[in-house]
């Protein structure tokens, strides 16, 4: 079996969306997520001699990213501790043992839901990686970023029917890939 190799020139194209979706549910704000990803890439570059090739490139980057996220939390927590104000409604006037609080809220998005959706998102990005580059870019623009058909056609200098052929192939491949990797569970 050949060992995994690192190729930093392809990192952004191959993994940045994956890492972004991994990060965005764990920190608040996409700017912070982007910063953490950029830090991750740079840290990866610095320690690329330590890469033993046992894990895949992406797994390795994720492990660096996880450390970056933890560091980020440490940082914001140490800032917060200095000016922390605890607010509680359990004062003398309003005794805080409300029945409403004990009832579960069925409309509340549970942690499990969020987690499952994140995993679904990562599965989708995985499948996007199996498309060829043009298909993936156009499919992403149309489906995720919701660009107009016309705008995409102008951008790539293709006709509308051309675009729909690309979308059709991409959707077919995506559906097949998702069937194999996600829906079967």
């Amino acid at each position, binding site marked *: 079996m050949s060992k995994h190799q690192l190729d930093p020139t392809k990192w952004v194209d191959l993994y940045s969306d994956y890492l972004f979706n991994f990060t965005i549910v764990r920190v608040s704000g996409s700017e912070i997520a982007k910063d953490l990803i*950029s830090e991750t890439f740079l840290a990866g*570059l610095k320690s690329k001699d330590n890469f033993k090739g046992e894990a895949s490139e992406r797994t390795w980057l994720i492990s660096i990213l996880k450390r970056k996220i933890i560091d980020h939390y440490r940082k914001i927590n140490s800032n917060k501790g200095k000016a922390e104000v605890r607010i509680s409604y359990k004062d003398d006037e309003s005794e805080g043992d409300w029945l409403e609080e004990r009832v579960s809220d069925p409309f509340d998005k549970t942690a499990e839901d969020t987690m499952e959706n994140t995993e679904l998102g990562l599965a*989708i*990005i995985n499948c996007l990686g199996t498309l060829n580059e043009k298909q993936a870019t156009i499919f992403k623009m149309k489906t995720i970023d919701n660009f107009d058909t016309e705008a995409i056609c102008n951008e790539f200098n293709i006709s509308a029917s051309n675009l*729909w052929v690309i979308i*059709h192939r991409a959707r077919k491949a995506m559906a097949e890939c998702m069937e194999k990797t996600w829906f079967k569970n």
Partner: protein
Amino acid sequence: MKCEEAGHVCDKNQYKEANFMERVQLAIHLMYCSACRKYAFNNNKLTKALKKSDIKTISEADKNSLKEQLQKEMNK
């Protein structure tokens, strides 16, 4: 309606871009064509999954600046 066209309308419909007539013709086609029915089923499933996952992408501009940054570091 031919299968090829049905597939095309079905794709457009995922983005709410199929008009009323097209949708009616598609519905009729799906009544007797099991192959297209299967495609439509999977296609809808994909759309739902995409909606549910709420995935985000990094914009091309941001990706380019990430690349530049990385490149700069590699040239050091």
